[in-house]
Every structure is written in structure tokens, then in C-alpha cells.
């Protein structure tokens, strides 16, 4: 044994190394299982999957791409949060600052926006694939329901983020998108049966969403908190359930 190999052995045998890595790297079935089950990130997977489930033509990798888009928006979003203030006076100026002065500011903003759009498309394709393979059928009915909730959360994430640049595009898109809330039966001040609940322009479903009768600085702060804290947290909770269910039930496939 050379000096180098001896040194390597002593490192691997040390208490520090052993405390971090619990299995070797030899390609044995045992190590392959441990590589997944002994790793907090990889153990989102089952340690074995059915052969067809790995194929791209079965999954299209769309669920994974959706999650990847979520991760990209989280990373780029945190970068943007360092330079953006959700205050009506500053928000738009901060966008310009991000574009022209911050290192990689424009790149981060572009990636954040395009990943958000791509996430909506990927969720939609994922759903299409799951329908095509009938993967919502027993015992996976509930995970489909969780998936529909995640679709709605994805749309809400994208929609709340739409307002934050505080330009003409964002406030009018959000105005149009939220006008529906004012027509909610019973709860909207222009909806049917409004006279039974006594709602008005500053006290109805849309005002609750906006934090006031019209879109304004209060709406910007409200959407910012929804976009950066509340909806991502809720989405994460549902993602945990979604992934855990896949791990428990395994990938769908024809019975043998």
C-alpha cells in the first residue's frame, strides 16, 4: 500500500469522516439503497423504482421540472429580495436599479420571470401526463387532489408576483385579474345577492385581497408578503405531502 493510499484509509477511518458518511461508495446493492435512504434529500425517492418509471417517455420529467422551476424562482427570488422594497415610492425605481446597476440583476430577474412562466406550463404538462397514464387512479386519488391544489397555488404565486414590478403592465393585469372578486356572489359589492350581506366597495372580497378599495401601496405590501412568504410556505407544505405520497405509493405502472 502506497503512502497515499494509507493516508486515504486513515481519513476514511477517522471519526470525523465516519460521522458524515455512513456507507462506502462501492457499487453494491446495499450501498445503492443506502445512498438514497441515508440521504435526507434523495430519500424523497423510494430506494427502488419500477423500470418503466425512469423512462422519459413515461414521465416526461414534468413533475421534476416543475419542482426545479420552483427552486429556481426561490433562489433568484431571494436575490431579488435583497434589492427590492415593496413600497410604492421605491418599487419601480428598484426595478430599474436591479436592471442597470446590480451585478447579474437583470439575469436574475429574467430567470425569475421565465421560470415562473415555465412553471405554469410545466404544471399543466405534468397534469396532462398524469391524466394520460391514469396515474390518479387508486390508490393515488388523493395525491391528484393535492396536485390540483398545487396548480392553484402555482397560479396564485405567479399572479401575486405579477404586481411587484409596479409598472403599467403589472397593476392593470392585476386589476383585471382581481375584478372577478368584486363579482363574487354574496361577498362582492357588484355580485348577485350583495344586498343581503351589505358589502360595499371598501368592504368586500376584493377589498380584502387588495387591503383597500383600489390597488394601491397597501396592495403592493400585501401581495409582496403573499408572494414571498405566505404562498411559498403553503406550497412547500403541499409539496411535502405530494412527494411523500409518491414515495409511499411508488410510481404508477401496469400491474405485473
Amino acid at each position, binding site marked *: 500500500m502506497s503512502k497515499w493510499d494509507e493516508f486515504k484509509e486513515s481519513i476514511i477511518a477517522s471519526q470525523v469522516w465516519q460521522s458524515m458518511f455512513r456507507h462506502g461508495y462501492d457499487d453494491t446493492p446495499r450501498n445503492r439503497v443506502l445512498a438514497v435512504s441515508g440521504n435526507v434529500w434523495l430519500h424523497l425517492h423510494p430506494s427502488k423504482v419500477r423500470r418503466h418509471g425512469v423512462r422519459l417517455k413515461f414521465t416526461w420529467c414534468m413533475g421534476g421540472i416543475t419542482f426545479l422551476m420552483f427552486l429556481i424562482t426561490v433562489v433568484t427570488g431571494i436575490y431579488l429580495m435583497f434589492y427590492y422594497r415593496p413600497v410604492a415610492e421605491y418599487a419601480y425605481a428598484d426595478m430599474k436599479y436591479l436592471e442597470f446597476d446590480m451585478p447579474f440583476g437583470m439575469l436574475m430577474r429574467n430567470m425569475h420571470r421565465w421560470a415562473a412562466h415555465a412553471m405554469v406550463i410545466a404544471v399543466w404538462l405534468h397534469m396532462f401526463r398524469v391524466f394520460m397514464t391514469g396515474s390518479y387512479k387508486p390508490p393515488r386519488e388523493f395525491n391528484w387532489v393535492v396536485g390540483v391544489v398545487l396548480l392553484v397555488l402555482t397560479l396564485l404565486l405567479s399572479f401575486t408576483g405579477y404586481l411587484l414590478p409596479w409598472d403599467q403592465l403589472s397593476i392593470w393585469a392585476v386589476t383585471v385579474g382581481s375584478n372577478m372578486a368584486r363579482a363574487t356572489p354574496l361577498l362582492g359589492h357588484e355580485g*348577485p345577492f350583495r344586498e343581503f350581506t351589505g358589502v360595499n366597495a371598501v368592504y368586500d372580497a376584493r377589498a380584502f385581497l387588495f387591503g383597500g378599495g383600489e390597488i394601491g401601496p397597501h396592495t403592493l405590501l400585501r401581495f409582496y408578503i403573499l408572494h414571498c412568504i405566505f404562498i411559498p410556505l403553503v406550497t412547500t407544505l403541499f409539496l411535502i405531502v405530494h412527494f411523500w405520497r409518491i414515495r409511499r405509493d411508488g410510481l404508477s405502472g401496469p400491474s405485473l
Partner: protein
Amino acid sequence: MAEPKVLTEVGRAPAQLTPAKRVEQTIRKAKGPGDDKIHTWPHLVRAEFLCTLIVVAGMLIWSLLVDAPLEEPAAPTRTPNPSKAPWYFLGLQEILVYFDPWHAGVVLPSFIIVGLMVLPFIDINPKGNGYYTYAERKWELLTFFVGFHILWIVLIVIGTFIRGPGWNWFWPWDPWDNHKVVAMTAVDLPYLFGLRDYWASAAFGLAVVVGYFVIGTLALYWAIVRVKGKEFMQRWGQPRFQLTAFLFLNMWAVVFKMILRLGFNVKYIMVTPWINV
């Protein structure tokens, strides 16, 4: 130790193979339930890793080439014409042409979400679980195609590319004329049938809407019994059938209302002091 004389497909004895290949060999020979499983590490993790690399590289290149839009600062007193919602909501905004806001913006989206959620519970066909098939799930796939693809995508495409100032219809080759004159000639269905009295019109409209759902449900019942048989209908049960029929008819109602509006200039089918449909 004497190795058993098993030759693999590459023509070498297992002992001569690399350890990785040896693990693969035992899996490949496996037969029977649960035996077609392969290890997540490396097979699935490798596929995911490659997919991640390719997609992140693609996103990076796209983001370097195409800038995200930023218009002039928000001005609450200057409304752009047209004002459009984000593209994924333009299907709903387009439905606003055909239905009142409470219907297009609140009721129909709720039906879409609820309809998607109950899907696994109303589809009791045990076939097609975990593999692609058309023959075994013809009706489910066709219905899904109409709602998810044709209706949803067509509405988004119309809202995104065809609608211009005043939410008027502009073909892609038409210039956007802010002063385009569009005659407001749409009338309500009872008016079209010669009814002029207010309450008679409301009663007629109500009859048409209720009739649509009652006759539609009966027709669907008859059609399903004919195609799938009485035995299937018994297994399916009334709650599942009623729910499916209700959602199915609502989906087609959007199509019918679009045809009535675009083809026959009909605004409402039912007009009452509280709600219009």
C-alpha cells in the same frame, strides 16, 4: 472457486464484468411481481440530474437572450386599452364576453377546480392505471381533451392574440384600431323568440336553462346506458353520475354560449333582476 458457466448477453462470464454490471445482471434476470424494480441510485437520480442540467442551461440561455418586460411606472389614472390579465387567466377573461363576471370569474373557475379534484373519484374505470392507452379509456380521454386542451387553450389563444382595444375581435393581420366601431346588436334569447314581456321573458329563460340541464342529464343517462350498459351504470351509482353530468353539461354550456354569442348575437339566455345567464 468455480463460477457457474453462465454467459451474459455480452458473452462474458459474470465474474469478468465490472461490479456495476454484475448488479445489473441480477436485476435483469429477475422475474415476477416487484422484481422489475431498479435502484433509484444511480438510475433515477442520474436521469433527474441530467434533466436538471439541461433545463437550467436552457433557462440560463433564454434569460440571457430575452429580457423580462418592464413598462412605464404604474399610473392608476391611465388605463391601457386593452387591459389584459396574465396570459394564464386570459381564458377566464375571454369567458367574460359570454357570461357575467360572477359566473365567468367565480362560479366557472370553482367548477373547474372542483371538477379536476373529483376526477379520480368519478372515473371508476380500473383500466389504464399506469400506462398509456386510448382504446381502454376512450370517453375519459375525449372529455378531458375537450375541456383541458381545446376549451382551455383555445380561450387563452383568443384572449392573448385575437382580442384588441375594447376587447374587440382583431385577426392577427388587422391593425389595432382604437376607434373600431362595433354595432351592439346582441339581444337576449327570449327577445329573439319574440317575447317582449319582462316576466314572460324571465320564465322562458329559466325554462331554457333548467331544460338544458334536465334534458341534458337524461340524454347523458340514456347515452351512457347505451354505450356502457346498465350494469356499468349500477356500479357507477347515482351520485357519481349526477356530479359528472352536472360538470359535463357546464363544460358544454360554455361552448354552446360561445356559439350563440359569436354565431347568433345572443347576449343572455335568462334575464332576472338578480342574475343573468
